[in-house]
């Protein structure tokens, strides 16, 4: 029982790291980016390739799993995404679906369609018993990493100058620009960090979520649930939402496997119908 809770928390943390970039672009910048999973997939593949082909240790691949998607994100933001900020949601949806299709086919072409295996280091394998609970080491590792990330993100967003600039730029780009804030640089940086975090999440989660070319499509819905259910005005909303989603998903699969993902989708619809702004957000 507690083990399930623990696994659920690890899963939820992972989802949060994967989705928090989306929480900013979609939630704060109001850009419907369905291609977010593609960045996560990029991170996962960076780790897989480095480990399996070049024998780089797992931990050393993680910074690269962050950096590569971040750079890709930065380039795409500067060249393509920024032209679509002002467009209609339909255009953004179409554009990002197009990107997903391209990413899926490109990865399929270069890497093959099979599952990628990531061998986590031996000191992270296995389980230990703490206070009578079976605890997976790798999952504790994920919780630790993601927990640190959450705190850092929350700190940056609420306490630093960059955070307040970002919030200002999101709330009203024109006024922010008038106050001398370089909005496009802030957006680009945020987008890059969001993509990088997704990549990191993809690398960390490859062991748990699996990694194959259809990754962006398979998990797109999960990211979107986190952001829409969590509400889009803060970072704590998505965080709580991903924890709930993670625990519900793990528990659901364990206790009522026949219902599958049914529970989660239904819950999402109910929440969105009752509270279109999200669970943890004040109505704007």
């Amino acid at each position, binding site marked *: 029982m507690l083990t399930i809770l623990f696994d659920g928390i690890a899963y939820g943390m992972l989802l949060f790291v994967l989705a928090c970039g989306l929480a900013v672009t979609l939630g704060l910048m109001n850009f419907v980016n369905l291609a977010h999973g593609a960045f996560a997939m990029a991170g996962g593949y960076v780790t897989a390739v480095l480990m399996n082909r070049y024998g780089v240790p797992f931990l050393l691949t993680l910074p690269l799993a962050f950096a590569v998607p971040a750079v890709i994100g930065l380039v795409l933001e500067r060249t393509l995404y920024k032209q679509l900020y002002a467009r209609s949601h339909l255009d953004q949806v179409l554009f990002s679906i197009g990107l997903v299709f391209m990413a899926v086919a490109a990865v399929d072409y270069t890497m093959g369609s099979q599952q990628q295996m990531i061998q986590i280091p031996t000191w992270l394998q296995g389980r230990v018993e703490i206070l009578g609970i079976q605890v997976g080491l790798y999952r504790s590792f994920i919780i630790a990493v993601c927990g640190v990330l959450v705190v850092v993100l929350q700190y940056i967003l609420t306490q630093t100058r960059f955070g307040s600039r970002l919030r200002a730029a999101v709330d009203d780009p024109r006024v922010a620009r008038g106050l001398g804030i370089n909005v496009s640089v802030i957006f680009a940086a945020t987008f890059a960090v969001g993509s990088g975090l997704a990549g990191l999440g993809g690398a960390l989660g490859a062991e748990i979520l699996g990694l194959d070319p259809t990754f962006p499509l398979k998990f797109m819905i999960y990211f979107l649930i986190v952001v829409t259910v969590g509400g889009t005005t803060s970072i704590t909303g998505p965080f709580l939402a991903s924890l709930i989603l993670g625990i519900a998903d793990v528990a659901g699969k364990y206790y009522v496997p026949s219902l599958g993902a049914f529970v989660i989708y239904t819950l999402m619809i109910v929440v*969105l119908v009752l509270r279109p702004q999200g669970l943890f957000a004040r109505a704007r």
Partner: protein
Amino acid sequence: MQSTTAETVRTALSRRGRWGLGEIAFWLVAAATLFFLPERHLILNEIAIIGLFALSLDLILGYAGIVSLGHAAFFGLGAYVAGILARNGMTDPLAGLVVAAIAGAILGFITSFLVLRGSDLTKLMVTLGVALVLGELANQMSWLTGGADGLQGISMGPILGLFEFDIFGTTAYAYSLVVTFLLFVIARRIVVSPYGLSLRAIRDNPLRARAVGIPVNRRLVAVYTLAAAYAGVAGGLLAQTTQFVSLDVLAFHRSADVMLVLVIGGVGYLYGGLIGAVVFKVLQDVLSAWTPQYWQFWIGLILVLLVLAGRERLTDKARFAVKRFFGRFRGKRPGALPSTSAREI
């Protein structure tokens, strides 16, 4: 006193309701393919079905401004309903279609209340969620739907008791084309009616539409139900003509594809879906012959380029060119017509 505004609106609507030369030519060409492209009937059949499906999406997206990523829900429901009916002995195709339409309409009516609230994003998520829930249901209820193996053993009776389905797909294509045409005519009649005009008012500005006395929610529920019925028929056609239904009919890529089809053809006018279906299928055919596994890449690229280049500008331009071309035969300036331009959703 008969107000002059009502008079103007009436003439404008009836003018718009008139069939143009281009439209007649379009359907004549479609009918001609029945006789001149006999070896292509299987793919033409698919084109007609996808065209009808895209037409139904256009009703809610192009005319009412509801963004949906889960339109496959109704398509899949129609397909399963028609398939299950046929497997259980009700082999009359037309009756199957009617039931599929009713099933789609019922689901559409129920779920329409879910899309009345919230922003574009909420609508996207809710429609997507509905399709996913249905997909899960179809997967779990394998005693009814065949689950992942698909629904097999569908055998259809002759249409109207006269025309047997043949292996070349000729009957199937004729059947799909006629159904699509009839439903198109109805949809065309609807969008040029005052009702259709009120839908466009809602799309362009819901707040203002409500202020001038349009019952916004009722109109949206009605059009959503209608579109769902259309999608149900399209799904039913697919099940009956291919005699097979798989979970694929409810998959996400169905919803994404139909949106792509509509966008290629142009949102907000009825031929968009049909033209888009032709272009999409031909593209898919060419690309998958060229790179069997990776044609999705090129579809994605086209989508990205289309959006970046400004899809509305492109389709508007193309439409204008067509209008001018056919306007010349009539010896009339086409620019005088109030254009039914696809506006921002």
